[in-house]
């Protein structure tokens, strides 16, 4: 089976928040719940980079480890999903998650949070595939329709990729090689790249990715 992963290319993300909007719209998540968010580091400074973050569907998921009711499960595709009928809304997954993925509909006094909600990789939940109940509880199940998560599908610069980890790694490796070939320097320097872009480099970037 494929191992499904998200990958966000910091060299391509332009912080348009299209993935956030796509996710909210597709999954109809309640107000205040953001399964995906874009974080910009060094905003307005040299070296500014943006990354789109959601549940990373960890192999050894901390949320799954600390859940007191064991409501998480890992699918054959390597997706970390959870059962909202089991979840008690204690918030432990939120304390443990390094990516801030678990979301709660409310934050009220006396520890009242409601059932946890997080990115499902557009794969629904434990209920029957494409059922109405699954749609209301977990949002879209695009994987059952043979489609990839909408956030990645909608990404205008193809910074956010979703799919089989091996395929993503291949795509990223090609991108890195091309960037290296065009600048011949540590990291990426677009200023130099534009100066050096000679005939030999033309078309290479487009042909490879």
């Amino acid at each position, binding site marked *: 089976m494929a191992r499904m992963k998200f990958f966000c290319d*910091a060299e391509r993300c332009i912080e348009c928040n299209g993935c956030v909007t796509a996710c909210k719209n597709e999954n109809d998540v309640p107000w205040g719940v953001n399964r995906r968010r874009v974080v910009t580091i060094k905003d307005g400074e040299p070296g500014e980079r943006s990354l789109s973050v959601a549940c990373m569907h960890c192999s050894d998921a901390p949320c799954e480890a600390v859940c*007191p009711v064991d409501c998480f499960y890992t699918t054959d595709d390597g997706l970390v999903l959870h059962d909202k009928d*089991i979840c008690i809304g204690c918030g432990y997954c939120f304390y*443990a998650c*390094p990516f801030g993925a678990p979301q709660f509909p409310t934050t009220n006094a*006396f*520890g009242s949070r409601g059932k946890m909600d997080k990115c499902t990789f557009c794969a629904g939940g434990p209920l029957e595939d494409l059922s109405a109940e699954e749609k209301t509880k977990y949002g879209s199940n695009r994987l059952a329709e043979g489609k990839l998560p909408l956030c990645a599908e909608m990404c205008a610069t193809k910074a956010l990729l979703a799919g089989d980890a091996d395929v993503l790694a291949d795509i990223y490796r090609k991108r890195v*090689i091309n960037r290296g*070939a065009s600048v011949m320097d540590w990291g990426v320097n677009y200023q130099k790249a534009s100066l050096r872009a000679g005939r030999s480099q033309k078309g290479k970037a487009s042909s490879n990715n």
Partner: protein
Amino acid sequence: MRQGDAIVVDAMTTSRQRRRRYMTWSLVLLLALTLVLPLIPYAVEYAQVNDSSLVPNPGADLWRDVRQRDNPVMGQTQVRGVDTGVLIYKSGEDWRIFRMQWLAPYGAIFMGTVLGLTILFYLVRGRVPIPGGRSGKKILRFNLNQRMVHWFTVGIFLLLALTGFILLYGRFVLIPLLGPEGFSITASACKEAHNLFGPLFLFAMLLLIITFVKDNFYERGDLSWMITGGGLLGEDTDAGRFNAAQKAWFWIATVFGLALCITGLILDFAVIGQSREIMAISHVIHGTSAVVMTGVLFGHIYWATAGMEGGMESMTTGYVDANWAEAHHNRWYEEVKNEGEIEKPSEKPGPGSASAIGVASPHPGD
């Protein structure tokens, strides 16, 4: 003639100047070569490293920044909320390790050990009877107000301890028994009860401290009581209204109880914008305090119930037998005797008092 002389002098000076220039330049060249030549291998290596296929991940610097443990990078995001700008929250892993690899196993080992030792102690030592049997004379030890505060705290604490430990250990113990759905309902009820009744514990703790603090300060004799183990190891069993072990329990309950209350409130009311880090730290203190307090509580319950005859009734009826008071809290007994607070003989003397003769050192705390 004069002209020729001048030419010769000119030639001599120019050749000398030239020689000097050659020497200077060759010296400079030599110096330059000694400095530059050893750098050639580095240059070669640099050129090799910069081979296009070996360019490091362009995001490497970014990720190195982001993952730095001591200096978490705060970003900007459109999503409003606490900590949404944190890209990678490293402390989550520390909290996971604490809860799953420290609190749960070592908490169970600690509480199980205390419980086991208590049972072992009972099996070896048996129940400590009232020395000299029951006198029939009764002394008021705890008035109604004090007893109510005590049992109020007991009720709240037991409810919170039970629900709390179900949330900690239920996944391992109760899911196999109740199934995931069944345990989910149990855990949900426990979580709600814990969160709703939790704040009452602060109220109970404050009442408890106010009620009992005045008799729980250090007095002369407490140290020797502690050293002799309250008569278990030696003869010195001098004690006031509360012995040193009871005082220790009072202060342990105060410190850990208040720690439980404060951290519990931080966890229970996540509405004032506290970060995950603060809540995780609160949970560490909360869990540790709960385990310590429960472990020590086993000892307290043991001496109040199975471990000693005549102690429990002080918290149920409020009265203790005069002989019990004289044996375990002699200084307090002298005080109340002088004030003439000893009550009339009770209607029915204790039946178990006959067997009490000849048992030594019955002086631990209740």
